């Protein structure tokens, strides 16, 4: 832990001064990266630690995003904390139900079942126009943070851009730090060890007294809630939620960025989320064929560096040290 602090403190400081060092657009882009990192942390509790590949995590991100939108639509709510609570509550309910169904299977059937269930939500969001406005989506205006305590010195002169690139960035950053800390404890807890045991050897885990299915279900629940929390943060940043966010290709992106960073390490998905987000933003700006680029990157990663950026960097580092 003290060894890790050597890296952690500079990184944390860098993140804190970021809005002063980068133009607002870049800062906002970074917020997106941090939000996807939270989603990926949740996702990787299943893939990296429990050994379950979900191709349906768009469902939880989407529920987390739609929950604040409904609060705005039906109750005119405008408190960020309320948004987050609603997001956590609804994703907890949905992932508890979906998880209960999915954990009956592993491997490919788990992946497809998770995908099929997420598609149910997508098609409902698409077709139930009276509820979701269909493809037009629902808007989420700028909320108050911490019940107005964290208001800006600019007061009414604060633009949306100011808000997103400054106050909201710090809000996201704080939630991000909290999520990283909580997830770090979870994966290093006795529960986390039990999950890794399930990943390594399901039968033996059962024979040391771990109730495999129940633990997978709890992992699924925690995973869904993290991803849902990310969705709630995202919808404010994006200002709009449409059914696209529930579509299974978005689940694919979550899988992608986790593998990009490296799912065998704790920090891999975080790095992957930030890198992916910049990669995608620039690819989209650079060419209309950004999917081609991303797809090609994914193919190359799978074929030549399956441990992701962090895993590969680690291997190279070790090799260099041994050579020196």
């Amino acid at each position, binding site marked *: 832990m003290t060894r890790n602090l050597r890296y952690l403190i500079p990184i944390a400081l860098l993140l804190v001064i970021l809005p002063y060092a980068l133009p607002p657009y870049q800062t906002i882009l970074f917020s997106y990266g941090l939000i996807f990192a939270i989603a990926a942390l949740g996702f990787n509790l299943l893939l990296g630690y429990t050994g379950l590949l979900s191709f349906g995590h768009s469902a939880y991100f989407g529920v987390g995003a739609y929950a604040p939108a409904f609060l705005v639509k039906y109750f005119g709510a405008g408190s960020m904390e309320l948004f987050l609570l609603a997001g956590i509550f609804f994703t907890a309910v949905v992932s508890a139900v979906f998880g209960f169904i999915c954990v009956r299977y592993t491997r490919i059937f788990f992946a497809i079942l998770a995908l099929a269930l997420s598609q149910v939500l997508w098609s*409902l969001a698409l077709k139930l126009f009276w509820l979701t406005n269909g493809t037009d989506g629902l808007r989420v205006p700028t909320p108050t943070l911490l019940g107005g305590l964290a208001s800006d010195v600019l007061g009414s002169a604060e633009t949306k851009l100011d808000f997103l690139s400054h106050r909201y960035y710090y809000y996201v950053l704080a939630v991000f730090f909290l999520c990283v800390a909580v997830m770090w404890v979870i994966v290093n807890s006795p529960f986390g060890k039990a999950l890794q045991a399930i990943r390594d050897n399901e039968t033996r885990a059962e024979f040391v007294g771990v109730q495999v299915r129940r633990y997978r279900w709890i992992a699924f629940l925690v995973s869904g809630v993290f991803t849902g929390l990310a969705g709630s943060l995202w919808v404010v940043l994006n200002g709009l939620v449409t059914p696209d966010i529930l579509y299974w290709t978005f689940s694919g992106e979550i899988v992608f960025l986790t593998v990009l960073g490296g799912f065998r390490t704790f920090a891999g998905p975080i790095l992957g989320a930030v890198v992916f987000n910049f990669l995608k933003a620039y690819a989209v700006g650079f060419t209309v064929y950004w*999917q081609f680029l991303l797809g090609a990157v994914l193919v190359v990663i799978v074929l030549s560096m399956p441990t992701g950026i962090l895993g590969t960097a680690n291997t190279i580092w070790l090799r260099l040290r041994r050579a020196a």
Partner: protein
Amino acid sequence: MTAFVQCLGFTLSSADILTAQILNSLFYASILFLIASGLTLVYGVMRIVNLAHGNLFALGAYVTGWALGHAVGWVSGPLLFALLLAGAIAVAAVGAVLEPTLLRPLYKRAEEYQLLITFGLLLVLEDMMHWLWGPHPLTSGALPDLVGSATIFGATYPNYNILVIAVGFAAAVGLWAFVYKTRFGVILRATSQNMRMASALGVNVKRVYVQAFTIGCFMAGLGGAVIMPISGAVLGMGIEALILAFVVVVVGGLGSLEGALIGAIIVGLVRTLGIMCFPEIELAVLYLIAAVVLLVRPEGLFGRA
């Protein structure tokens, strides 16, 4: 619920509507079978779920659309129908290249990687089609116009759609005969049941895999080819088709050809009924059916455990 019952009663009460809807269901089922049979064949033999399969279906549609667009005017009549095969063959050729280059290195790795690489392939193919044929749909109504329509039990129905139903049926029979009645079929089934054993008995597993994948791609391409004259070639059609094909193979049983046929018919019926009577939740109902089948009978209605 009452609305649904009324709608159902209305459909059943009139012979021409009923006929048209049954034909519609069969039409859907036929297309779905063409897509799903390839997906299930590849899974059955190679244990790979190809997420890019829907995009190969779309590629078949695009190649056919492109060929028809260029041919109309100087190729006439029945010869145009031969162009449908061009789409299927082109996709088969793509498959024959993809399997050895992209998939072969991954058989020994965890299946997560196989899903991922086919997801990467999906993204690449989607944009390749975008790049090659542009953002606008390719359409060609030449073939349906050519064959006109017929009146069956009071319902006027396009002959081309009936032709598609026939193609789907022929493909089902052909594939069945191929897998169960030919020498290659025996090798294919042996490999799917026990790859190591087959390999030990002198089966060239590499060749079987590339052949199976090529056939799977051919079926997907054929599906895309025959639907192109009706719905055109559109970006995103492949991703949508993949999910429906998933529903089909999950309902019928992943890896089972008979299952793909039954699954396609069930999904075709539910879709037709859904579009008429419960359009809002039609897709949700389909995915729920898939989820429920996975839950109570994971091997599918007709699958091997």
